[in-house]
């Protein structure tokens, strides 16, 4: 057992033997870039010329006033190229792939954001690219499929299991065990076998580094609380990274409460009561599974949080109580989204809106001298099909019906 692969009792690397050497290679390559300041510099340069880093920290004056409590700041990962924090991880891994001399990348995607980000990175770096996506998600997120294909990627529809993210991950592993010599698997979040959780968190820590500097400059001191949604855990770990151990800053991870924690239809691993420790998809964490160890179907209005597992690093923080976990229901998410659009002219991704929900619940208890930061992991305008559906917008439906009629002529 590689001790650095574990965070408390969580993590590890439960991989088929055929990938053993691939992971040794990856571990060495990761160790190298971690200790090479030139890599981080290259990464920062790439992100500030190809994407829009540093992303701003927006003072949401209207929302702050509306709730009459803490000053609400929003870290704007939505302004990244491709529209979400996913770009950070993917571009960093792209640089790594170049160093490793591989020529092809594969990735799983649920919401499609990570797939789009990976296809984008592959186009930029000149890699071949295959994206695995569950059939349900392909149906839900067709616009993203369209862009991935237009960027030159091959999108493979996964028709197994629950036909969602976890099945796409399995299928990506099946590709990897076949093509590991040429291929790197660009894992999309801080999950999976070591060194992925650590590596993805490290690349995402760029968010926290910026946010710390920004809040000190704009607010004058550290925030009282930081809110981030938790799917796999990468955006939350990214922003939390620079605040761990700060006595005055409480870190809050918000999971997908779906139809409610007691409904059986949610994706809350750490704050519900349907998860238990388990090992799947290459790592050990709290999984939504039954007593036999079979994974459950999860539910969330946001595809990006709709996942059975959670970062082992977060499971450790949960156990050690260094991060607090809450859940936001689908309904609360839509309300928070609506309010944020109307008050600030900002459209959070459905995933990100989970963090907004919890911040809105707690902001009134804090003083106007306090600041809270919400990590806005992505923008919602890509989610138009889902959001329009969630709002049950009649003119949107008419529009789609008319379009379809034109196509059927």
């Amino acid at each position, binding site marked *: 057992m590689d001790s650095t692969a574990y965070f408390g009792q969580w993590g590890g690397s439960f991989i088929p*033997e055929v990938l053993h050497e691939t992971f040794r290679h990856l571990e060495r390559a990761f160790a190298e870039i971690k200790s090479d300041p030139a890599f981080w510099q290259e990464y920062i340069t790439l992100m500030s010329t190809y994407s829009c880093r540093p992303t701003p920290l927006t003072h949401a004056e209207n929302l702050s006033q509306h709730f009459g409590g803490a000053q609400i700041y929003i870290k704007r990962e939505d302004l990244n190229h491709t529209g979400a924090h996913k770009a950070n991880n993917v571009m960093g891994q792209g640089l790594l792939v170049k160093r490793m001399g591989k020529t092809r990348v594969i990735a799983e995607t649920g919401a499609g954001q990570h797939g789009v980000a990976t296809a984008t990175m592959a186009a930029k770096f000149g890699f071949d690219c295959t994206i695995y996506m569950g059939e349900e998600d392909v149906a839900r997120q067709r616009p993203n499929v369209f862009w991935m294909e237009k960027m030159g990627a091959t999108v493979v529809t996964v028709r*197994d299991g629950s036909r969602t993210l976890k099945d796409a991950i399995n299928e990506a592993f099946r590709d990897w065990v076949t093509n590991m010599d040429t291929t790197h698997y660009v894992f999309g979040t801080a999950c999976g076998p070591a060194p992925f959780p650590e590596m993805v968190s490290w690349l995402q820590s760029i968010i926290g580094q910026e946010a710390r500097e920004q809040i000190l400059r704009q607010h004058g001191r550290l925030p009282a609380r930081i809110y981030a949604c938790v799917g796999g855990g990468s955006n939350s770990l990214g922003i939390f990274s620079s605040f761990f151990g700060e006595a005055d800053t409480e870190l809050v991870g918000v999971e997908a409460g779906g139809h409610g924690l007691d409904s059986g239809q949610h994706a809350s691993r750490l704050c519900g009561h349907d998860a238990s420790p388990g090992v799947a998809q290459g790592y050990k964490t709290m999984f939504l599974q039954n007593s*036999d160890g079979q994974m459950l179907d999860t539910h969330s209005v946001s595809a990006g949080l709709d996942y059975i597992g959670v970062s082992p690093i977060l499971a450790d923080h949960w156990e050690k109580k260094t991060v607090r976990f809450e859940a936001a229901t689908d309904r609360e998410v839509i309300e928070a989204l609506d309010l944020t659009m109307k008050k600030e002219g900002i459209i959070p991704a459905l995933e990100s809106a989970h963090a907004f929900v919890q911040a809105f619940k707690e902001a009134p208890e804090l003083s106007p001298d306090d600041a809270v930061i919400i990590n806005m992991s992505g923008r919602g305008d890509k989610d138009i099909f889902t959001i329009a559906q969630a709002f049950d917008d009649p003119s949107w439906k008419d529009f789609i019906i008319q379009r379809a009629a034109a196509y059927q002529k």
Partner: protein
Amino acid sequence: MQLENYLRQKKATKDILLMTHIVLGYPSLDANRAVIEQMVAGGVDCIEMQIPFTEPMADGPIILKANQESIAGGTTVEECLAFGAEMSRTYEIPFLYMTYYNIIYKYGEARFLDRAAADGIAGLILPDLPPEEGAELCAAARKRGIAPILIFAPTSTEVRMRELSGHGAGFIYCTARRGVTGKHSQLDADFGDYLQRCRAATDLPLAVGFGIQSRTDVEALIGLADMAVIGSQTIKLVDEQGVAAVGPFIATLNDVSGTSS
């Protein structure tokens, strides 16, 4: 040691041994029962019984689908273990469990091993449990007389193979190629080199699996390996031609493995 000894004795009488594979509960435990009966009658040397898991990362489409349909049909781990006990009581040949680590983790490692040992299970194949994570489980299994079957892959170095071998018992499962179960493997010159490296790295018998589908494939392994593993192919056969086709299929394979006996 029991499994290894059994295989060595059997091997003395045949050019090559045969292990077959079934997914418990697919299409049903009753069908499994009938298939196993035919397999044993056809003369297979041991059988691996896969306890289905929702996330069979190392399996290809055929076994994957079998896992899912079995679970969807309601198969529980408890039923699988009861079935395994029954088979091992009923037949003389060794039975192994193949599954993913989470099934055992959730059941409780010690509890699982105790029960498997009591039920006479001969070995355990866990494709997602490398020794870095599973050394203790391997040791605990060996202590109970259950052979932990370690896996060699074409990408394994010599050093790595030796290390793996040190954790294993019974036999080594050599995957014939990269990738997942199901797709046919080219047993070419590179493959011969690979098996020679495997042979050099361990004293345990060598089984070869992944894409062994026909009499020709099995024949090609003679002299290189001790046992051929037929996985997806029987499932496909049952899907396409029904349970009754298994006996004749095994007979053709065993015809090979018994040619020089």
